[in-house]
């Protein structure tokens, strides 16, 4: 634990970060920025895992391992998403979600 810092403070930081990510996710239209907001949300969750591990279960590393797996899955997700973005750009010369409507017509 960090001396002088309570668990609540860490959780507050991660909550605020998560909701900043949600805000970006809702307002952005560019696929890459949506992806970045998603990363913010995922990291907020990872901070929670780590903080709970440190403060409530210091004897076992389970929270750390969850954060590790989270990082691995986030890397997978980003790799695929970037591949899709680049392919999309090749096809419609844009990466805005509102212009991805070729299925409609």
């Amino acid at each position, binding site marked *: *634990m*960090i001396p002088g*810092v309570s668990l*609540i*403070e*860490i959780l*507050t930081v991660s*909550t605020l*970060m998560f*909701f*900043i990510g*949600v*805000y*970006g996710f*809702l*307002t*952005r*239209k*560019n696929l*890459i*920025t949506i*992806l*970045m907001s998603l*990363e*913010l949300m995922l*990291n907020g969750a*990872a*901070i929670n895992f*780590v903080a709970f591990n*440190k*403060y*409530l*279960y*210091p*004897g*076992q*590393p*389970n929270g*750390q*391992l969850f*954060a*590790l*797996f989270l990082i*691995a899955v*986030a*890397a*997978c997700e*980003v*790799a*695929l998403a*970037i*591949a*899709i*973005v*680049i*392919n999309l*750009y090749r*096809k*419609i010369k844009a*990466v805005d979600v509102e212009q991805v409507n070729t299925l409609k017509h």
Partner: protein
Amino acid sequence: MEKIIFYILSAVILSLSLMSVLSRKLLRSAVYLFGVLTAIAGFYFLIGYHFLGAVQLTVYAGGIVVLIIFSILLTHDIDHQMPTPDWSRVAVAGALCVAGAVMFVQLLQGSLFSRVEAPEQSDLNTVGNTLLNPGGGGYLLPFEVVSILLLAVMIGAIVIAKQRHSVDDSSPEKQAP
């Protein structure tokens, strides 16, 4: 001392993530995200989880952000500015997020997490032994599943992003404006 560092790190995390979400220039947004991720790695180091911090630096700051920057470099030019989102969308999303954040922070204030005082087990050996332990409480199966997921993603990303030399003329590439 740790307390001051924690507050500095939280201020950096929150302000940079806000700037990352609000910035109208794409690459600046990515750079703010880079700052956030590095600050989170700093938080992991502060809390004593060095291995996790190093992994965060390697995979997030050195891998994911580089990928994102690469995709920005490939798909945008420097003069590109994102349009400001419409007023109604900002209002709705902002109200939703503020309401959610307030609710969660309120919930947190009322919660009673009792801190457990137990001997610390966070060194590299414990992490490694738990991660690769096939017995009870071990994480060998998830570890293998994640490695298969990584392999699948690697192949998938190559297949998706590969330039197709399609034979038929009706392929979507040629119809696109």
